[in-house]
């Protein structure tokens, strides 16, 4: 995709009601439709695809996988995240923003102007699509923290970004961050996923990894910011299920500076992965065990050394455990992970064809994209399916398969304990 700011500043579907959205003539801010007129059977659908060779795939592949799963949702939420989609700006953080109105945009941009160097700000390229209406103002910003502000904050760059996301979501009225990672972006809204995909012109993007989602809202309203994926930095999460432990998870995350503001349970999963993988540097498989913990009866049957690790993991991360049914796909620069709850209360099927690894709620989604899969299988509950892009940095501490002693070190977090912890 060639970026020419002059050409790309095209009118978008919301332009006809521009005066309304500026809030100049209306005292009240416009609201999005939060409920559809009718309810249809469904239960959320998701997909993830990663070409481990790093070969870019068109966003149409993701749209195709979601379109055959249309009946899993009800038109109240669809979305995607793509990785490697901004090769022109690989080292910029890209903020995809949603604004209720011009005032919200000005407030958020004041934060960008104060703390960041913004190298490109533009409206998200969209096209009018039947079924998509009531969109907020959608903008994207390619930026990096102001070096002086970053230094004086005494934070890492990542923490600085996380802090900014939390600040905007919690304190700028009417502004929401859809995504905030490098060389990636989330494209989401209210509508069926194939409509959302065409609305955001995903056919014009190419990425090595895509995740997609079709929403059937159950406990929380269907609104633009509440559609999946949920993201932070370059982590993105799509989720089918319900996180019954949302209350304890969000309180636990608050203690680490995360603020849950988007009104959908899935938000906690995105922040928990950031906490466990980036900040606590847990190996991936251990993080998955912390979130989809083995049952105590399963732990009792494990070898003794592993038992000790699992017991301490459950003790340390008890408030972070995701309770309730879920199938999730975590996307990031470098790969993709799919995970089920520990007793498989939501569907998840996987397939591999050559260097392409794909997961979805239904096998049909993968048959739609892969013409001759080498292997199709249903992953076990709590057992992650992992894709890793060759030649890219693996952003996760440790290798895929750690020894028990390395796992112990990771849990205790104390380097010196590596010698003293008895394993095997």
């Amino acid at each position, binding site marked *: 995709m060639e970026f020419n700011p002059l050409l790309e500043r095209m009118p978008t579907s919301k332009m006809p009601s521009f005066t309304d959205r500026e809030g100049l003539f209306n005292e009240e801010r416009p609201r999005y439709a939060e409920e559809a007129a009718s309810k249809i059977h469904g239960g959320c659908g998701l997909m993830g695809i990663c070409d481990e060779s790093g070969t870019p795939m068109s966003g149409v592949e993701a749209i195709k996988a979601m379109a055959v799963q249309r009946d899993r949702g009800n038109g109240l939420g669809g979305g995607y995240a793509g990785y490697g989609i901004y090769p022109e700006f690989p080292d910029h953080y890209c903020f995809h923003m949603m604004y209720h109105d011009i005032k919200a945009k000005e407030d958020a941009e004041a934060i960008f102007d104060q703390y960041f160097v913004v190298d490109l700000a533009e409206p998200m390229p969209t096209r009018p699509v039947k079924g998509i209406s009531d969109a907020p103002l959608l903008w994207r910003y390619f930026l990096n923290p102001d070096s002086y502000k970053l230094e004086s904050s005494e934070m890492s760059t990542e923490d600085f970004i996380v802090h900014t996301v939390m600040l905007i979501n919690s304190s700028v009225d009417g502004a929401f961050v859809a995504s905030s990672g490098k060389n990636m972006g989330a494209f989401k809204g209210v509508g069926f996923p*194939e409509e959302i995909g065409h609305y955001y012109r995903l056919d014009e993007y190419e990425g090595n990894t895509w995740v997609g989602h079709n929403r059937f809202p159950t406990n929380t309203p269907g609104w633009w910011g509440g559609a999946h994926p949920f993201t932070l930095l370059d982590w993105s999460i799509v989720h089918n299920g319900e996180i019954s432990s949302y209350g304890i998870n969000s309180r636990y995350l608050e203690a680490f500076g995360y603020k849950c503001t988007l009104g959908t349970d899935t938000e906690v999963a995105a922040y928990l992965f950031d906490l466990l993988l980036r900040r606590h540097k847990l190996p991936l498989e251990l993080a998955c065990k912390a979130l989809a913990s083995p049952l105590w009866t399963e732990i009792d049957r494990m070898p003794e050394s592993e038992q000790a690790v699992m017991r301490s993991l459950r003790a340390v991360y008890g408030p972070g455990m995701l309770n309730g049914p879920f199938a999730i796909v975590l996307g990031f620069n470098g790969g993709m992970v799919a995970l089920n709850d520990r007793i498989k209360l939501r569907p998840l099927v996987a397939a591999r064809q050559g260097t392409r690894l794909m997961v979805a709620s239904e096998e049909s989604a993968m048959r739609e994209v892969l013409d001759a899969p080498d292997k199709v299988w249903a992953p076990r509950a709590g057992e992650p399916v992992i894709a890793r892009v060759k030649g890219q940095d693996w952003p996760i501490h440790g290798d895929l398969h750690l020894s028990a002693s390395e796992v112990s070190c990771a849990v205790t977090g104390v380097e010196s304990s590596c010698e003293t912890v008895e394993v095997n």
Partner: protein
Amino acid sequence: MTETTEIRQGPIEGYLMVEPHVTRDGDTVTIDAASVYYKYVNQAIRAAIADGVTTVRVINVNGQRYIGNGLSGTDVTIEVYGTAGQDLSMFMNGPTVRIHGNAQDGVGNTMNAGRVMIHGDAGDVLGYGMRGGRVYIKGDVGYRVGIHMKAYESLVPVMVCGGKSRDFSGEYMAGGMLVLLGMNSQFDGPIVGGYIGTGMHGGVIYLRGEVEPWQVGKECGIFTADEEDMKTLGPVLKEYAEEFGMDYDEIISVPFTKLVPISHRPYGKLYTYV
């Protein structure tokens, strides 16, 4: 609200709201389901049966739901080519459905009568609340297969899974027969997961080989299948072997384990004072 017009370019992804292409050759009708919405595929199947055909071939199926749902009559065979969608043969009452490919979740939900033959794998909640008929799967099956199968007098549902199954197989089973062979599997590890037969209060589960006691719900007794059991099992396994071109003698070359409930009311006193 803004009025928008559709200017979407190129092919529209997903299923199309069109009638499928149908061809008839004698007693056989072929329906091309490629990218056709399930509603129109199933309408075409019903129209063909009403027209008196005995074999309905549905080709290029990929994820279309509800095939065979609520259909009656024993003289109809539906041959499905591709990946059958959710809730295949739900409430079905007589026909034979053969899948040349894999099936997704919810096959045979509350099925009354008929036969479902899957020449591939099947997903989760297979045969949920099944009340009669037979479901045979060549390969692996998912979690919660045969939950709450039930039987009444001569109506006895039978399910045979050729591959491996996961947790909660036969949970709350009230009747019928569930057979797990563990033979045609792409997975290593045990033939079945945990919690098999939890809350079971009727029917029987046969497994080729052995299970660990921890895998079995505490409402089940574990026995080795005896000659009487093999007399019941024999005709079922012969029919199964014939359908999938397997060797019957090889199937029975390993002793079977039998799981039966130790009480017909395992939770009768759960909420009462004792």
